[in-house]
């Protein structure tokens, strides 16, 4: 019974972890290329969640198809935010960028509340699932996981094979070196920021496949927090490290949920977060560059 529950939660942890990974890649990419910490990260996840909700509710478009919409919305938002705000902050002190991205997050949340209201909304996309001996696995979660893997893989190929992808890597490795090669560094910044936001908005679509009724304009804060933990675990600035670290975080969260539930008198939900963040502290104590980071 307990073993079954644990097995089920480990599988859910892995599936959710894949989405966590994707939800953090954008944050790490933006930090890696621009050295900008996007404190407003979660607001873009919320935009993705509402994209999935409205597409489904208004036009009956399934969430997987909404991914395309999310990518377009994300690229556009990222580009506009970069051109209007981030571009001016590249040489500014860190505190300015932190405050600015925090402000962007609040602005997006409040604007969304103005249009969409403060209530929790949700949708139900029931497409069945697979019966395992110990649990019922809904296809929606499997699809969310699969989409994360496919998107991360596509991004990897794009980075390692295309000229623009390589130009981004070059800027990360050495900005001045990139300049003498003729790479337009500002263009690379704009592109990376837009891709980072597009990834984040897309992950917001996938998040709703796990919590389809938890869509709310303030839902992002929780994800911002988790994304920071995952980004640090993965060695800040590395999108691939972040992707792997997402799995670790998902497993940790879901595994500890089951185990904590066994202790009488303990409310596992509240303590889960405590365990996840304690693990983070421990890892950072032992390996300050992050679990998967370099030396």
């Amino acid at each position, binding site marked *: 019974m307990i073993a079954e529950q644990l097995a089920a939660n480990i599988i859910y942890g892995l599936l959710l972890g894949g989405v966590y990974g994707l939800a953090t890649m954008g944050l790490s990419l933006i930090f890696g290329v621009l050295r900008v910490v996007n404190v407003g990260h979660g607001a873009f996840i919320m935009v993705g969640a509402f994209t999935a909700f409205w597409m489904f509710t208004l036009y009956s478009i399934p969430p997987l198809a909404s991914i395309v919409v999310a990518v377009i919305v994300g690229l556009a938002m990222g580009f506009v935010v970069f051109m209007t705000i981030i571009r001016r902050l590249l040489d500014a002190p860190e505190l300015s960028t932190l405050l600015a991205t925090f402000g962007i997050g609040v602005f997006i949340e409040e604007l969304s509340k103005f249009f969409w209201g403060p209530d929790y909304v949700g949708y139900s996309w029931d497409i069945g699932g697979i019966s395992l001996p110990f649990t019922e696995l809904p296809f929606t979660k499997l699809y969310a996981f699969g989409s994360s893997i496919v998107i991360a893989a596509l991004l990897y190929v794009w980075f390692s094979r295309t*000229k623009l992808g*390589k*130009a981004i*890597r*070059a800027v990360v*490795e*050495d900005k*001045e*070196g*990139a*300049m*003498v*090669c*003729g*790479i*337009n*560094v*500002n263009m690379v910044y704009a592109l990376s920021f837009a891709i980072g936001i597009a990834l984040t908005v897309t992950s917001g679509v996938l998040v709703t496949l796990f919590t389809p009724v938890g869509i709310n304009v303030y839902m992002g804060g929780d994800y911002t927090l988790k994304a920071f933990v995952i980004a640090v675990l993965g060695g800040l600035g590395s999108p691939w490290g972040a992707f792997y670290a997402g799995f670790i975080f998902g497993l940790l969260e879901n595994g500890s949920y089951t185990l904590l539930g066994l202790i009488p008198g303990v409310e596992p939900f509240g303590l889960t977060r405590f365990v996840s963040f304690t693990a983070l502290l421990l890892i950072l104590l032992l390996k300050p560059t992050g679990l998967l980071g370099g030396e």
Partner: protein
Amino acid sequence: MLKVSKLESGYGEMQVLWGVDLEVKEKSITTVLGPNGAGKSTTLKAIFGIISPWNGMVEYFGEDVTKTPPHKKVEMGITMVPEGRHLFPNMTVEDNLLMGAYLSRAEEKFEDSLELVYTLFPRLKEREEQKAGTLSGGEQQMLAIGRALMTSPNLILMDEPSQGLAPKLVKEVFETIYKLKEEGLTILLVEQNVFSSLDISDYAYVLHEGKIAFGGSVDEIKESEDIKKAYLGV
């Protein structure tokens, strides 16, 4: 080919260049000498556009390129071998060279450029698959020059290419620079290695506290004991 007039620039509030005037003739080697902190690197960075010129003018073949961003300058045939090399340490030697041929102008001449680089530096060919960060200092310098050549430039700005190299390698680097001139390239060189650089140069300038203190042919500098004593410490 390149004409710099009354160039002023600096970092933040701090002005470093106080009106630099210099000229580079096509297919020549022009050297800028000067003590540490004179503003040699700053001059090259302001010409190339890594930092913005505050005042004055940079002309390239008569065209005003003072505010032209670096990537457009590379498109026009200007590139730089920066101080400290600025390679891509986690990329292979081959990928570093490939990045040099990033623009379409360079891509068209990719094969020829690569052959030139591997002829000049056979060691780079041997180490094609090795990560740039693991190369020796001398090899890294060769790669930095090689990467600049891959952009298919007319004018290369070189910042202390002999820095930190063993005497034998220093000699090799200067010989290479001379070969590049024979290939038809133009070079604006910044150096602390007075004698070696004067040996290969056609023209020389002495930069002192952000201003040109002397400019002329190499022979003039070599003959003037005053200049050598006052500014070059030799």
